[in-house]
């Protein structure tokens, strides 16, 4: 009920939304979907600050930030995007850092007869009709999936079976819903409670695709650089690191 009243109050005030002093807006790659919801909740609980979290594909965020999107911090799945923003002078100098290395897995539902432990050979099976991956055009995890399929020399045979999610979360949703038979998704999503309950995965060997170096940066266009730094130190702190590791992120050793 309180939330209804709150929402109605907000509805009445035009232009001014949530007059909380310490508020940051974060753009995060979709592979952080479950991990970041948890981390943000924990961060808000310990600091009392509010975080507005937007999830999407790293490439789309890159384009939006160039067009003036008002984000404070950008967590990309590919460090190349924030690096380009740094070169364009859109970031707070010295704030760019690599926060994790991502991994990809082959995932299928428990009731599926596809044996993902066979690796990429399983994709050739005629029972595999649709394979979900993220759109390699603007999603780093999609590019990693294509690279791994090329490495195992199955890409040409299976490319007509590919269905593209707008980001890696949507690819995971395609296979979770059963609409696709198998998916190449982020390990961090496969380790999320609802995905673990619904299916199982095979970890794709890390040497079959270029390492997914994930980078974050504080943006010049943001409103609250101090709070942004506080959030980054929370992620780098013991609590944040434990949660990131639980979601399968290989965390680089501190500089």
């Amino acid at each position, binding site marked *: 009920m309180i*939330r*209804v009243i*709150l*929402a*109605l109050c*907000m*509805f009445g005030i*035009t*232009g001014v*939304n*949530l007059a909380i002093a310490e508020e940051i*807006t974060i753009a995060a790659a*979709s592979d952080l*979907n*479950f991990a970041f*919801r948890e981390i943000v909740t924990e961060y808000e609980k310990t600091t009392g600050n509010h975080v*507005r*979290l*937007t*999830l*999407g594909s790293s490439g789309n965020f890159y384009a*939006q930030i160039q*067009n*003036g*999107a*008002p984000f404070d911090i950008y967590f990309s799945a590919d460090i190349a995007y924030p690096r380009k923003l740094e070169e364009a002078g859109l970031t707070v100098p010295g704030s760019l850092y690599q926060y994790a290395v991502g991994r990809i897995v082959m995932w299928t539902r428990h009731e599926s007869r596809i044996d993902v432990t066979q690796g990429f050979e399983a994709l050739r099976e005629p029972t595999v009709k649709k394979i979900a991956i993220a759109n390699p055009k603007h999603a780093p995890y999609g590019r990693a999936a294509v690279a791994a399929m090329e490495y195992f020399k199955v890409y040409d045979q299976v490319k007509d079976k590919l269905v593209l999610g707008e*980001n890696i*979360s*949507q690819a*995971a*949703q395609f296979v*979770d819903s059963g609409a696709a038979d198998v998916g190449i998704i982020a390990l961090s999503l496969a380790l*999320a409670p*609802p*995905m673990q309950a619904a299916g199982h995965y095979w970890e794709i060997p890390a040497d079959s695709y270029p390492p997914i170096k994930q980078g974050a940066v504080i943006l010049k*266009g943001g409103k609250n650089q101090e709070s942004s730094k506080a959030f980054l130190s929370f992620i780098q702190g013991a609590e944040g690191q434990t949660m990131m590791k639980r979601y399968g992120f290989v965390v680089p050793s501190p500089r």
Partner: protein
Amino acid sequence: MNWIAIAVTFKLALFTAAVLLIIGLPVAYWLTFSKWRWKFIVESVVALPLVLPPTVLGFYILVAIGPHSPVGRFYSDVVGHPLPFTFEGLLLASILYSLPFAVQPFAAAFEQVDRRLIEASWTLGVSKLKTFFRLIIPLSVAGLITGAVLSFAHTLGEFGVVLMVGGNIEGETRTVSIDIYDEVQALNYAGAAKTALLLLAVSYGVLILVYAMNRKVWAVWPQR
């Protein structure tokens, strides 16, 4: 349910309907009463959002108000921040996107007003402006409500345009339809279903209102 997204959506829809009620009236008046032979060209422009893919409209708006366009630069120089990915930018996009949903019912209602009454008013020396407010508007109330309500409902369900120019920011541009999309990707089907049901109920309710009104089940302007 995400009450913040619901509040943002209703605020956006209400503002869009209000603005369209103000700018839609003169446009509809001109479309109804102008005798210009090339009028159909303007009519086509007004109807364009009906057939244009929302991504196309969204793309053009993004380019037009972005930091690389003169308009976008002017706005950010004056206001201090760029227009895309803000509530104001989204409002502008919604107004363009819902324009035909307001203007077409308005124009249809004006068309229905007996020409003899209008001409009688003019010949009795009542100015065109006064005739518009004291005669045409009262006789077109059902059409005006239809237009306002349809543009309100159309804005509630907007997705493609919001995806292109909104940026999905909580409390600012994350509308209900985007929230449903997010919830599905977070595999929260129960949450998505609840919000989807709300949108279904509101949309159905709005259409019942519009059809009932046009059937004159309720007289909106009681005869005295």
